């Protein structure tokens, strides 16, 4: 590692009205390294990256930035891109109906006199795609490839701009384990073969441990420490966590013993077809059961059909030509609409709370009561006092961090939004809750609280079905774990016998070829 840093950010202070988001933060990045930045949500990671990339122009913050030895005063993103700093945001910014090649060169078209040179566009795109290890045709539309591949297209796009410092904001947040592994491998390759410098913001400590050369921990807008991952003392995940939260977290999963009762939910021979490609089976003859007080996991790689299974059971909210039976307490129930599913005692908290879970332009209280308005209204008239009482109750009980229940839900952090979504479903008084990726994009401290909520639900005799892409999480909180692969349930393991390897084997089990 060379001794002159490629990037130094000195004493960066950024204030918003009433809040000091960053306070004298220092960051030093050396060429050719993968530098991870971690910290809880709201610690200031994203703000720091926005300062670096010119989203917050020079003058709106204090402190100095030096890149490649020269002082930088970026007025906008264009300035920073010009110097070779590219940022890949958590939410991908690709145009869905344009091709991969068109997206790569969007805003940077291969053209002469305003006319696109398609041969150059496609040829260069193909070269970039090879570089990132993506085997798709450059003419494929973005909608037709998965999120994992889209992430690679974003990187190819950055590479096309002759980038010297690549910033990846939560690059694997939306990816399954396989795609994540691919991406991390690509990052290593870019570092080792091209000497690319990367800054990676991540919550996933195992990934940080796997690829990064150094880690800077930020807490409450301040630099806590920069750790050398290749130093003499090994940096464990626990060390990073204790720096992030400012205390040592002995156990990431609360200890809990479930009292398991009789069966609550049983799904039998559930088959769902793709809503557009009608002949494709997304869920294929799946059966599963959840008992009272039991926390059941549903593991699977992205595209295995977990969310599709859950959403189709929950009022046919997904899919076409759905067949199969749903039983609650041993009796077959009609779940053909969301309203009926809720009435039958099923709740489903979505994996994408911003898009599917919350009305972001309405206050917390309105969201909390949205699914059970019938409970606090008579003859169609809402009892607003009762609404306030209910919402206040959940704010205290779930420890939603907000000064009031009149705050718009869009202004809350991810963890608090998730608590609002959970409150909303708990208020419908369900017998079984299906929680789809309940801790996605949430920081370590809030995750622990979500696990505690799940345990409280279990203690109250509810059945809980947790869908998660993080195997340690499932192993940490579930009594039993089902695995799905290619739309089928490929097995289930008790907590005692399950480990990541065994689950992974079941999760990747190929469809057995039919004899005919």
């Amino acid at each position, binding site marked *: 590692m060379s001794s002159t840093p490629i990037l130094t950010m000195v004493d960066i202070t950024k204030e918003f009205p009433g809040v000091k988001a960053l306070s004298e933060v220092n960051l030093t990045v050396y060429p050719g390294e993968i530098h991870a930045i971690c910290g809880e949500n709201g610690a200031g990671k994203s703000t720091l990256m926005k300062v670096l990339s010119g989203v917050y122009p020079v003058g709106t913050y204090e402190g100095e930035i030096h890149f490649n030895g020269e002082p930088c005063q970026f007025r906008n993103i264009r300035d920073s891109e010009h110097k070779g700093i590219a940022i890949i945001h958590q939410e991908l910014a690709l145009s869905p109906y344009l091709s991969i090649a068109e997206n790569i060169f969007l805003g940077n078209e291969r053209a002469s006199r305003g006319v696109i040179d398609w041969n150059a566009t496609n040829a260069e795109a193909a070269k970039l795609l090879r570089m990132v290890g993506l085997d798709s045709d450059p003419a494929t539309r973005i909608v037709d490839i998965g999120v994992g591949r889209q992430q690679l297209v974003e990187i190819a796009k950055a590479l096309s701009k002759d980038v010297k410092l690549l910033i990846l904001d939560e690059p694997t947040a939306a990816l399954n384990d396989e795609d994540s592994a691919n991406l991390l491998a690509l990052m290593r390759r870019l570092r080792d073969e091209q000497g690319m410098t990367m800054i990676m913001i991540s919550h996933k400590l195992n990934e940080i441990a796997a690829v990064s050369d150094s880690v800077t921990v930020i807490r409450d807008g301040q630099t806590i420490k920069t750790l050398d991952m290749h130093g003499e003392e090994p940096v464990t995940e626990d060390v990073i966590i204790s720096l992030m939260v400012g205390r040592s977290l002995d156990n990431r999963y609360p200890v809990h013993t479930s009292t398991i009762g009789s069966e609550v939910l049983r799904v039998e021979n559930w088959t769902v077809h793709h809503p557009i490609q009608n002949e494709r089976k997304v869920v294929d003859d799946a059966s599963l059961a959840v008992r009272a007080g039991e926390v059941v996991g549903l593991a699977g790689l992205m595209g295995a059909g977990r969310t599709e299974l859950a959403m189709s059971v929950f009022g046919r*909210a997904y899919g076409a030509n759905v067949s199969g039976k749903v039983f609650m307490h041993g009796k077959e129930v009609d779940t053909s609409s*969301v309203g009926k599913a809720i009435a039958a005692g099923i709740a489903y908290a979505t994996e994408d709370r911003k898009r599917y879970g919350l009305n972001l332009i309405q206050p917390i209280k309105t969201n909390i009561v949205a699914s059970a308005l019938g409970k606090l209204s008579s003859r169609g008239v809402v009892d607003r006092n009762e609404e306030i009482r209910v919402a206040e109750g959940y704010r205290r009980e779930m420890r939603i961090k907000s000064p009031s229940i009149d705050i718009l839900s869009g202004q809350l952090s991810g963890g608090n939004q998730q608590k609002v979504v959970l409150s909303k479903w708990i208020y419908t008084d369900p017998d079984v809750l299906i929680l789809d990726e309940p801790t996605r994009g949430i920081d370590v401290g809030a995750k622990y609280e979500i696990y505690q909520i799940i345990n409280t639900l279990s203690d109250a005799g509810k059945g809980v079905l947790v869908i998660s892409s993080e195997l340690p999480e499932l192993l940490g909180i579930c009594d039993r774990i089902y695995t799905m692969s290619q739309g089928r349930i490929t097995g289930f393991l008790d907590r005692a016998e399950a480990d990541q390897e065994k689950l992974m084997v079941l999760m990747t089990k190929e469809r057995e070829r039919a004899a005919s």
Partner: protein
Amino acid sequence: MNSVAQYLSKNAREYGIWIALVLIVILFQILTSGLLLIPNNVASLIQQNAYVMILAMGMVMVIVAGHIDLSVGSIVAFVGGITAIMMDSWGVPWYLAVLGALVAGAVIGSWQGFWVAYVGIPAFIVTLAGMLIFRGLAIVIVGTTVAGLPRPFVNISNGSLPNALGFVGNLDVVTLVIGALGVAALVWAQLRTRRAAVKHDIAVDPAGLFWGKIVLIAVFAGYMTFLLANSAGGTPIVLVLVGVLIIAYTFLLNRTVFGRHIYAIGGNLTAAILSGVNTRRTNFMIFVNIGMLAGVAAIVTTSRAGAAVAAAGGNYELDAIAACFIGGTAVTGGIGKISGAMIGALIMGVLNMGLSIMAVDAAWQQSIKGLVLLLAVALDLIGKRRTGR
């Protein structure tokens, strides 16, 4: 006092529209040398613009849910025609004809609601088709004009409440009583909401501001009462009609499950579906409702003209849409209030009235109204962007 200033700047968007209305009134009061606010003009301001307010109530709900309705003007002409023919050709008593108009409006609304909610055709297309269909039908049944309507029917938009309680000086006592009751009810309702909020520890306006606001509104309402009590007839009947509708629809949007569902659909459609909201039925009912309100507007318009005219209701849909947007309804749906749309309608009305008194050419009036709409939405967006940062 710094906190009050801060508070005002934070809530500038909400108060901005009130301030805009007051400024426009003052402007025209000056430009017309005081003619705008003479008692008889105030009465006819209300009578002439009742249709915008009525249609805007339905339109707010449509726009909040993320749709649009281009057909209300044509429905007004068509239903107005039906109503007039019922009375003129078939000899139906006026009160049954009024009922008939409401039913006809609701039937037309369910026709359009069916296509939007159950077939899934965008409302823009459905109501564009409706605009053509019902304008055509209006011309077919009305010809050019159906006149000769009964006196009580014509009185709806032209008459005033009878002077049952005599006069105090020049002032109509009925109007004074209504005004006093109105102010009292408003103060009571505001106090009740505030107490409930305080009880539940919800942030409320600073006390000074709260009372200041109430005094301002009371002074405004008192002044309007004074002007109307001074006018030739006293309280116009349509004012009572519009007042009742405003109260009913504010209640409907704020306090009922149906109202909540409208905001839920407009704020995040998928989240609403996944929360168990019957989005189809809600969308259907939204269109039935605006159809019915178009029926009310047809009654008011036909009564005002004293005749059904095939060309009636021209550009009414645009007036109603403009009133909503001036009143802060979000173009993308999910946000909007009856009160805002009503003030938007009043701003349009004052513009109409003021420009007419000044004898500004009708063509220019249209251009000016267009500019005001554009400016209002632009200011709203700029304000949003500033507070969003």
